[in-house]
């Protein structure tokens, strides 16, 4: 909401500048930003248009004589609304307008022009630039624009939180200022009029819960005309346009008191009756904005007893709307149930100045004050007369809540003692009734603060006015220790560190994907009921598609050797209930390009399933000391893939990303490798204790064994056999060379294994190792039809 500083001054003395005022409001809990602040401008003054004649050489231009208080200047002006007699803003030669626009003497179509008549946009007041800004004639020619207009147009934009319905008005904001600065709040003077008119209209409510109060009044003899300048200025400063005096009054009162009212054209009511009821099946109404609204059942309506004439608290109907020709009106000042209005506005997807206020809660006991304010203004500005008594239907008066505030609780929550006098003053200035006793205050909350229901709500009021910055900070740590690892996800740190150590960069990807991508993994993804777009309508089931897209993005931007990983949650749907929506933490990585780049030292080595297998082995086997088994698998997303088994538990997959995925994700990547595993099945093993094993000091004995075998024999299988046969003394066994040669024969290879032994208790001798070696040779020769090569 935009509040005008000038307007606020009607109700409270304000000494502060507009930016200081904004700061003060922010620190009171009304988040404020300066909306309009006119900086001092020299050579920009109030001017009077003495004459405006047609330009001799241009149809659309006018040649004007502008009086600046001392001198008259000849100015060429192209604005369509320029006219003789107007009071305008005149930028003289030498003025510098916002945007560093310097005014100089110019010649336009052969005629000299000395200065400019300004539009709102040229003065940085608004975006309005259709015509020049025309001011009230009361302004004196020659006065500085920034001095006289600045204060009138200075305004602040407030972001009102849902707990402050009262602050949705100038009065509410002024009240906070008055409380904070210890000034008096002056409410506008309102006269309730004893009407001698006898007109009435029957008013009935179907439900008193929906509409606890409804006030109506009929006025006649109205002349609709343009609003006076003060009213136009008020609305302008608050960011609204002036329409005519009648409409402006309703808008003005809404912004002033925060209580929405509605004005019906009385003559247009076909049936002279008001019935407030819920909508029935298949009802509709054309609203003021000329939209036809199909009403769902149960929408709260104002009807004329037959057809809807307004959607209660949200928007009036077009048919009964006031117009330039209106002479008699029905004024409505009501109080509707906040939840009913909110539900109604939601179901219609409408939000209006009126609905915003009703759904937060307006003051039921302010409806009559508001009514009289409207009646008084209509009387003053349009010549209208009240021809009915005030028709106030309010069967059950809503009273302010009684709340007890303990002095001890206030001190406990604040953490400091707040002076009793301050508390009592603050509360009573905020509109509370307060009775003090030794240990507590008995308070009655004002009905314009429906948010205040409990002791804590009052404590907040006191502390916010006291000023959060005035509460001393307590820098002590209190409380008790808690045993245990403070972070249950500490175990993840090692994975991040290792991946980063292996040259991988961590990414965070969007969890929301389109349906196709989210289901690529073969799992069922969870859809959003109200997605942002179809591209972000499902939760991801795998981290791989995101990583593939990252790799492609980087490749397209010139990085060819890519190593990326992500540690994040994925979701899968196993059913409709919350318990069947699975969330799991996954580590995935992708790599493409070179593992080692070509250099003066080394030849390039491509990334491959082996570079990834090496990383997995380092993490799972060397670092964690777990058993890693990779089993060939058929997994979506991979052309060649293996299951990752850790200590016998299937945790994920690794392999070469399938070419169809690379194609379907629209990438330029030729080949990429990835693994993905989850932690759920084995994370408890990661929290296990680590114990030291004694360092072995006896010398190691090693042998190289060279076998010739058929190409079809898998080296890994032979190695597993060697390890089994080697027994407990084995410390290491690995293939170190594979050699192919025509001498070996077709489809044959020679594989050299390095085998190393060590005893924890003695120096090994040949006689200890030789029998084992013999057994290995025997086993490999027999099992794999391999020949020992000497």
């Amino acid at each position: 909401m935009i509040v005008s500083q000038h307007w606020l001054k009607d109700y409270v003395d304000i000494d502060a500048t507009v930016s200081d005022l904004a700061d003060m409001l922010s620190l009171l809990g009304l988040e404020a930003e300066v909306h309009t602040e006119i900086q001092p401008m020299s050579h920009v003054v109030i001017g009077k248009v003495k004459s405006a004649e047609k330009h001799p050489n241009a149809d659309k231009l006018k040649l004007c004589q502008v009086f600046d208080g001392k001198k008259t200047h000849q100015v060429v002006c192209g604005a369509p609304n320029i006219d003789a007699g107007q009071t305008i803003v005149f930028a003289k030669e030498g003025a510098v307008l916002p945007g560093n626009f310097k005014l100089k003497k110019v010649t336009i179509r052969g005629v000299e022009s000395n200065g400019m008549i300004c539009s709102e946009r040229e003065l940085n007041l608004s975006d309005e630039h259709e015509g020049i800004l025309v001011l009230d004639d009361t302004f004196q020619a020659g006065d500085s624009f920034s001095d006289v207009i600045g204060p009138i147009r200075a305004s602040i934009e407030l972001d009102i939180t849902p707990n402050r319905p009262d602050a949705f008005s100038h009065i509410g904001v002024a009240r906070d200022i008055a409380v904070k600065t210890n000034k008096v709040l002056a409410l506008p003077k309102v006269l309730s009029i004893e009407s001698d008119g006898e007109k009435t209209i029957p008013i009935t409510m179907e439900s008193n819960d929906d509409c606890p109060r409804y006030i109506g009044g009929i006025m006649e003899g109205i002349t609709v005309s343009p609003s006076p300048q003060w009213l136009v200025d008020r609305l302008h400063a608050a960011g609204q346009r002036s329409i005519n005096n009648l409409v402006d009054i309703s808008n003005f009162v809404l912004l002033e008191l925060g209580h929405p009212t509605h004005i019906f054209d009385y003559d247009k009511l076909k049936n002279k009756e008001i019935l407030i009821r819920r909508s029935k099946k298949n009802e509709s109404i054309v609203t003021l904005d000329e939209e036809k609204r199909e009403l769902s059942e149960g929408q709260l309506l104002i009807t004329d007893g037959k057809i809807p004439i307004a959607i209660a608290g949200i928007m009036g109907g077009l048919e009964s709307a006031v117009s330039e020709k209106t002479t008699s009106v029905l004024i409505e000042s009501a109080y509707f149930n906040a939840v009913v209005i909110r539900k109604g506005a939601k179901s219609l997807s409408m939000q209006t100045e009126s609905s915003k206020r009703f759904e937060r809660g307006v003051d039921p006991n302010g409806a009559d004050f508001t009514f009289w304010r409207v009646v008084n203004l209509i009387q003053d500005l349009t010549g209208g007369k009240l021809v009915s008594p005030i028709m106030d239907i309010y069967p059950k008066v809503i009273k302010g809540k009684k709340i007890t505030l303990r002095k001890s609780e206030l001190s406990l929550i604040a953490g400091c003692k707040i002076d009793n006098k301050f508390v009592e003053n603050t509360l009573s200035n905020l509109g509370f009734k307060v009775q003090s006793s030794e240990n507590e205050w008995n308070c009655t909350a004002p009905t314009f603060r429906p948010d205040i229901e409990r002791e804590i709500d009052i404590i907040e009021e006191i502390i916010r006015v006291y000023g959060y910055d005035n509460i001393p900070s307590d820098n002590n740590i209190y409380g008790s220790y808690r045993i245990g690892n403070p972070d249950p996800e500490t175990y993840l740190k090692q994975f991040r560190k290792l991946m980063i150590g292996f040259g991988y960069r961590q990414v965070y990807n969007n969890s929301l994907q389109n349906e196709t991508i989210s289901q690529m993994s073969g799992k069922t993804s969870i859809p959003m009921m109200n997605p942002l777009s179809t591209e972000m309508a499902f939760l991801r089931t795998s981290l791989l598609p995101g990583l593939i897209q990252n790799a492609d993005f980087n490749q397209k931007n010139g990085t060819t050797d890519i190593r990326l990983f992500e540690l994040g949650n994925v979701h899968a749907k196993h059913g409709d209930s919350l318990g069947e929506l699975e969330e799991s933490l996954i580590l995935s990585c992708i790599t493409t390009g070179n593992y080692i780049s070509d250099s003066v030292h080394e030849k390039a080595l491509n990334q491959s399933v082996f570079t990834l297998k090496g990383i997995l082995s380092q993490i799972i086997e060397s670092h964690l000391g777990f058993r890693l088994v990779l089993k060939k698998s058929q997994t979506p997303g991979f052309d060649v893939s293996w299951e990752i088994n850790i200590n016998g538990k299937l945790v994920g997959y690794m392999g070469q990303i399938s070419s169809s995925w690379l194609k379907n994700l629209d990438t330029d990547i030729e080949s990429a490798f990835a693994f993905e595993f989850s932690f759920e099945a084995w994370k408890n093993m990661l929290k296990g204790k680590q114990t030291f094993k004694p360092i072995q000091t006896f010398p190691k004995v090693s042998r190289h064994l060279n076998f010739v075998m058929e190409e079809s024999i898998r080296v890994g299988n032979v190695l597993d056999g060697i390890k089994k046969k080697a027994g407990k003394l084995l410390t290491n066994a690995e293939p170190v060379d594979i050699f192919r040669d025509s001498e070996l024969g077709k489809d044959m290879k020679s594989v050299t294994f390095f085998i190393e032994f060590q005893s924890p208790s003695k120096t090994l001798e040949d006689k200890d190792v030789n029998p084992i070696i013999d057994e290995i040779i025997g086993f490999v020769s027999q099992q794999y039809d391999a020949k020992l090569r000497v």
Partner: protein
Amino acid sequence: MSLKENIDSVRSDFLADIESFPNDAQDIENLRVKYLGRKGLVAGLFSSMGNLSAEERPQAGQLLNALKNDLSEQFQKKMDENNSGAQTQDPYFDATLPGIAPALGSMHPLERTLQEIKDIFISIGFHVEYGPEIDDDYHNFSALNFPEHHPARDMQDTFFVAPDTVLRTHTSNVQIHLMENEDPPIRHIVPGRVYRNEAISFKSYCLFHQVEGIYVDKNVSFGELKGVLEYFVRQMFGPKVKMRFRPSFFPFTEPSAEVDIWSTERNQWLEILGCGMVDPAVFDNVGYDSSIWHGYAFGMGVERIAMLKYKIDDIRHFYQGDVRFLRQFK
């Protein structure tokens, strides 16, 4: 010549020979063999001891051993010097060639910022708790004192998975789970991914990461909340940062506040976190007696903290996976 004279002669020849120590391995070996080999000059002198009398032998043995040790030592010293300089002595050795560099990884700036935030709170006694990203309306809203038909619900645009199931809009749902499962006192922070149904732009994304904290004990004051957050902000942004507490509204805290820090660069206050005293209604919902227990809670966006800390101007950078962005964070 006496043995002593022979010893001196061998030593001076040796010193002369090693003065210009050869580069070639074979020449070095030849030099070693000449003096220290099995048939070398020193060995020759040992064998000449046979000509000496029994009385002379012990002394001669001592002298010869000293010679042998001396020569071996000096030879070894030369060898070492020679070896250590082996590569630099190659006239064509080119040390200007680039090194053999291992690949360099990097931690995501959000991860790094989150670790920093965790470390700061753990240092003052907080534990860390985690919880689900998909939750029921009750844990994400109702239990946190968001009435069903209240404008407070508009404060967070929510993704619905089912009419009663949401992608959490904050990690406060975990505070509810935590309090349902544990008796007070508690002192925890809750990091995690949260979702908002907001149009994507340079300043907002459909998801972000949050760290929320909650402390519940018998006597907890707003003054303590101020103290703890001042500690956090100064640890995070430096001891001199100017900050302020500003009244605000969150359904689950009362009184509520926003914390702003002053940006000298932008010459304005920047909002960095929200906080407040836990609303008694929340305690009632989880079965804590609100007449006994008090508490404070706070919440911040990791993205926002990281953007301020590293002066990142567009939130979308975090989710792009762009190496040119990632490599800037170590």
